[in-house]
C-alpha cells in the first residue's frame, strides 16, 4: 500500500516537473531544454571562463536552485547529513566521462526525456543506449561493484558547495562583468528565462526531487535489478506532462532532422547515452540526483558535480562536444576512450583484491 502511494507521489512529482520544464522553454530557455543538468553545467563552466565557447556561456540559476532547493528541504526534514570519502577521485573521473557522453548526445537523461516529449526521435536512440549502459552497469553491481563506504563529514564540509553556488549567483548578479555570458541570439547560452523564474523553478524541482528521490538512472536500474517501476514513474510523469504542454504550446514536432540543439547521427546518440547510463550507474545516480545529493551534504556527489564541470570544460576546450552539425571526430574518439575508462573502473572496483568489506 505504501509502495503504491510512493509510486503515485513520484508520478505526480514528475508531472509537476514536466510542466515547469516546458514553462521554462516558453519563458526563454532553449527548445526542449527547460532543464538539462549537463547543458546547464556546461553553460556555467563557460560563464566562469573554464571554456571559451562563446555560444554556451551563462551562469544558469536553475543549477543553483536545484542544489539549494534540496539543501533547504533536507535541512527542514533533518536529512542534511554530510558524508563523503567514497573514492572521490574515481567519482571525479567517472563524472568527466559521463559529461563527455552527455555532450556527445547533447543532453543529460533529464533532457533526453524532454527531447522525446518534444518529438525528437534522436532521443529515442539515446534512450536505447542509456538503458543498455545501465544494463551493463547493473551487471557489475550484481557482481559486487562498490566504490567503498563513505564516512561522516562536518557540517561545514557538507554545506560548502551549496553555499559556494549561492555565492557565485550573488556575485553574478552584483558584478556581472566578472562572468562570460552569451548574447541573445548568440547560441543556447543566450536563451534563458528571467533569472528569478529560473531560480524559483530550480528551487521547486530541487525540493521535489529531494523529497521523492527522483532519479533517471535509478528508474531503469531498479526496474532491471528489482523489477520495481516505482522510481521509473517520475520519468513517466515528466514525459507525460511535458508532452501535453509541448502539444498545447505548439512546441511538439516529431522527426529526426532539424531538431533543436540536437544532431541526427543515430550511432553516436546511442553510444553517447550508453556512456552516460553506464557511468551514472557506477556513480549511483543521474546528474540531477547528484545535484540533489550535493544539497543533502553528500560530498562525494559534490565532487561528482565538480567532475561534471571539469568534463564540460574539457569537452569544449578539446572540441569533443557535438553541435547541431553532428559529432566531432575528437568527440567520437573521446566517447570510445571514456567507455574504456569506465570499464576499467568497473572491473577494478568489482574484481579488485581489496574488497573493503
Amino acid at each position, binding site marked *: 500500500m505504501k509502495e503504491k502511494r510512493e509510486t503515485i507521489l513520484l508520478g505526480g512529482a514528475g508531472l509537476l516537473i514536466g510542466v515547469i520544464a516546458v514553462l521554462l522553454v516558453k519563458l526563454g530557455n532553449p527548445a526542449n531544454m527547460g532543464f538539462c543538468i549537463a547543458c546547464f553545467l556546461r553553460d556555467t563552466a563557460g560563464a566562469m571562463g573554464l571554456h571559451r565557447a562563446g555560444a554556451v556561456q551563462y551562469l544558469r540559476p536553475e543549477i543553483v536552485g536545484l542544489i539549494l532547493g534540496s539543501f533547504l528541504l533536507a535541512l527542514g526534514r533533518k536529512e542534511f547529513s554530510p558524508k563523503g570519502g567514497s573514492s572521490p577521485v574515481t567519482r571525479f573521473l567517472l563524472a568527466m566521462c559521463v559529461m563527455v557522453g552527455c555532450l556527445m548526445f547533447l543532453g543529460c537523461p533529464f533532457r533526453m526525456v524532454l527531447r522525446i516529449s518534444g518529438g525528437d526521435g534522436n532521443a529515442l536512440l539515446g534512450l536505447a543506449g542509456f538503458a543498455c549502459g545501465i544494463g551493463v552497469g547493473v551487471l557489475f553491481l550484481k557482481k559486487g561493484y562498490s566504490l567503498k563506504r563513505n*564516512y561522516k563529514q562536518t557540517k561545514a564540509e557538507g554545506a560548502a558547495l551549496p553555499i559556494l553556488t549561492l555565492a557565485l549567483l550573488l556575485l553574478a548578479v552584483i558584478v556581472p562583468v566578472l562572468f562570460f555570458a552569451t548574447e541573445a541570439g548568440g547560441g543556447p547560452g543566450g536563451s534563458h528565462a528571467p533569472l528569478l523564474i529560473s531560480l524559483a523553478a530550480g528551487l521547486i524541482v530541487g525540493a521535489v526531487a529531494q523529497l521523492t528521490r527522483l532519479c533517471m538512472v535509478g528508474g531503469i*536500474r531498479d526496474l532491471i535489478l528489482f523489477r520495481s517501476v516505482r522510481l521509473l514513474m517520475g520519468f513517466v510523469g515528466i514525459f507525460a506532462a511535458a508532452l501535453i504542454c509541448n502539444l498545447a504550446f505548439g512546441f511538439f514536432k516529431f522527426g529526426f532532422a532539424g531538431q533543436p540543439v540536437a544532431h541526427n547521427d543515430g550511432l553516436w546518440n546511442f553510444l553517447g547515452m550508453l556512456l552516460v547510463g553506464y557511468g551514472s550507474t557506477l556513480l549511483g545516480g543521474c546528474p540531477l540526483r547528484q545535484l540533489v545529493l550535493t544539497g543533502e551534504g553528500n560530498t562525494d556527489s559534490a565532487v561528482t558535480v565538480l567532475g561534471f564541470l571539469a568534463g564540460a570544460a574539457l569537452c569544449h576546450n578539446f572540441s569533443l562536444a557535438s553541435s547541431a552539425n553532428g559529432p566531432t571526430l575528437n568527440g567520437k574518439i573521446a566517447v570510445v576512450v571514456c567507455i574504456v575508462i569506465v570499464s576499467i573502473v568497473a572491473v577494478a572496483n568489482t574484481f579488485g583484491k581489496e574488497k573493503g568489506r
Partner: protein
Amino acid sequence: MIDARGRSCPEPVLMLRKAMTSKEASYEIMVDNRVSVENITRYGQHEGYRVTVEDREDEYLLRLEK
C-alpha cells in the same frame, strides 16, 4: 549482522539480497541513511519479511523476520 553503513543506494539492498540466498528466517542489517532504510524495508516486505527499524542516532538497525 550485515554492516551496510556508509554504503549508498542500491548497495545495501544488494548486500541483503546476496545474504538472503541462504534463506534464513531472520536478518539484521545496519545502515546510516534514510534512503537505505526505505529501500530495505520495501525490499524486505516484498520478500515476505516483517521489518522493524531501531533508530540509533544517525544509524538504523533493521530486523527482518519471517
